[in-house]
């Protein structure tokens, strides 16, 4: 009984301590904002940051839409940001408060989801590409057709992301990756059915684990994960698929329900500083859109083929609304059939 009372007292202290000073409620991908950056910001501004996390953009959306907690700054992926802008869930940014925006390369401020960057600021850019363990695979792998061959059955890991997998089939067939229609899905179906029979592991969270463990020799993974693999061991190579690829962007944006708008702007401008942005690159070897920060990186960091591949047009995923249900059904069906 006594210990229960003690616990209650502890709780009260914990709750009241959390309600002091100016605060910023950050809602971002798990571990995507380095602790160093948050500590530096708090030290400089006195603003206490509470960092809530999510593992998928949809998880973020689900929690945000339900209400219950007001977030000041979120990190949506490109296609979700697009839908949020259209539904007036994001607040226009006050560019005057973001002088450090000038460090960003102009092409990253004109992405399809928000061409004028009125609502969003790019955080990091990635691509989805092929990782090859060159010690075990001697054939040249240039794209999806080279990768998905029967002889590589059970030696492949791919991200567990239905839309990604469908988009690879679409570009292989010469179709637009964003044209998710029933006809296109029907065309892609036989190809995907063949492919997923060859896959040993689907994993979005840590697709590099089976590659490092030696359970598989090939993978289609996020570029940042691939970059970490290459840093770990030079036997891994990264290839952008010849059939076509797409970049994806994680953004920073302020929801309309935000309470601490000024603090959110301060944090945004803080992370756009070259020396702060560099800290993020040090921990997450994705493509940094901040040109001034790139100048601070080591030649080895810049030479990592997964971090800074030669990129052409920045053709990102667009929001496809309800067509997602068709993808879901198609993939559930094909995976179930492949497991028989």
């Amino acid at each position, binding site marked *: 009984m006594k210990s229960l009372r003690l616990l209650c007292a502890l709780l009260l202290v914990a709750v009241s301590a959390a309600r002091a000073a100016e605060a910023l409620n950050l809602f971002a991908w798990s571990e995507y904002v380095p602790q160093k950056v948050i500590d530096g910001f708090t030290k400089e501004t006195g603003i206490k940051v509470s960092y809530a996390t999510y593992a998928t953009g*949809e998880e973020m959306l689900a929690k945000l839409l339900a209400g219950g907690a007001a977030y000041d700054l979120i990190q949506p992926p490109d296609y979700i940001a697009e839908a949020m802008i259209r539904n007036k869930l994001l607040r226009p940014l006050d560019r005057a408060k973001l002088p450090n925006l000038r460090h960003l390369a102009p092409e990253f401020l004109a992405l399809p989801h928000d061409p004028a960057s009125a609502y969003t600021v790019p955080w990091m850019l990635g691509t989805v590409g092929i990782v090859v363990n060159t010690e075990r695979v001697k054939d040249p792998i240039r794209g999806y057709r080279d990768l998905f061959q029967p002889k590589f059955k059970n030696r492949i890991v791919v991200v567990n992301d239905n839309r990604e997998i469908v988009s690879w089939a679409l570009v292989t067939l010469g179709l637009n990756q964003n044209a998710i229609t029933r006809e296109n899905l029907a065309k892609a179906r036989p190809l995907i059915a063949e492919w997923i029979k060859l896959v040993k592991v689907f994993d979005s969270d840590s697709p590099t684990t089976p590659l490092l463990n030696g359970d598989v020799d090939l993978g289609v993974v996020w570029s940042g994960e691939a970059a970490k693999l290459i840093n770990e061991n030079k036997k891994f190579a990264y290839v952008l698929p010849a059939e076509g690829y797409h970049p994806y962007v994680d953004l920073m944006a302020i929801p309309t329900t935000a309470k601490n708008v000024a603090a959110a702007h301060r944090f945004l401008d803080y992370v756009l500083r070259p020396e702060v942005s560099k800290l993020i690159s040090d921990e997450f070897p994705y493509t940094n859109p901040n040109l001034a920060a790139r100048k601070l990186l080591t030649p080895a960091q810049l030479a990592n083929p997964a971090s800074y591949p030669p990129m052409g047009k920045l053709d990102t995923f667009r929001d496809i609304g309800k067509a997602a249900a068709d993808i879901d059904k198609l993939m559930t069906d094909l*995976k179930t059939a492949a497991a028989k």
Partner: protein
Amino acid sequence: MTIPVQPTQGSAQLPRPARWFLLAPLAVWLVAFVVAPALILLVYSFSERDELGRVVFTFTLENYARAFDPVYLSVFGRSLGYAAATTAICAVLAYPVAWCMAQARPPWRDRLLLLVMIPFWTSFLIRTYAWITILKSEGLLNGLLLYTHTIAAPLELLYTPGAVVLGLVYAYLPFMILPIYGSAEKLDPALIEAAHDLGCGPWQSFARVVLPLTRPGLAAGVMMVFVPAIGMFAISDLMGGARVPLIGNVIQDQFVGQARDKPFGAALAVIFMLIFVTVYWLWQRRAEARVA
């Protein structure tokens, strides 16, 4: 103050003040945090989603129609299969352990109980990764088998259905051990001796004496393992390589995955729960009938 006490269970009338004192917390909790969310779910299941994935309240049966698509039925069937295998293996493994624990002398009982439970106080994810370290093709188990020349080439252990069942058994074993222990502990060893003296072999005395007396615990264990195991998805993702979609994965994808279709997810969950609530209700009624 005396109240009428009748010999059969569950038949006494509740005195008024005690009734509220005992009943209120349970009833209030169930209504507020079980009935209310279940109603929300029910409403969702007849609604539609908008472009963003918000729920739009209408009345449609389309979600239910989709749920009975063969694709999702076969997913459901497969989930049942995995859960049934898990439950059976858990029961076989847990029974002797629970029995030994129950027969141990009292100070050892609690120690054994903790010995069984402590592994589960480490994070699920860390435990699962430890299994991956053991099972991967260059892992500890394959290394051991190769070293002792039991096998010539590494076995494919990880990312197989077997690995998924292993992971499920490992995750749910305590939920079988503990309820069986709870009801086996009260068993009087004299009963078994009596059975023995009456000429029962060990197997017969188990089947005729021990099993019937521990049946409630076993039943509770089955319930605690089988039903949650159907909805489990993290293990099939981590140890099965997410190759086989289970019903938990499908529901998960509707709520926080790309499908963004809460009404459909809700319909799947409602069907799922209706089946089990019905089975559970029948089971409870049978248990009652047996007592009366």
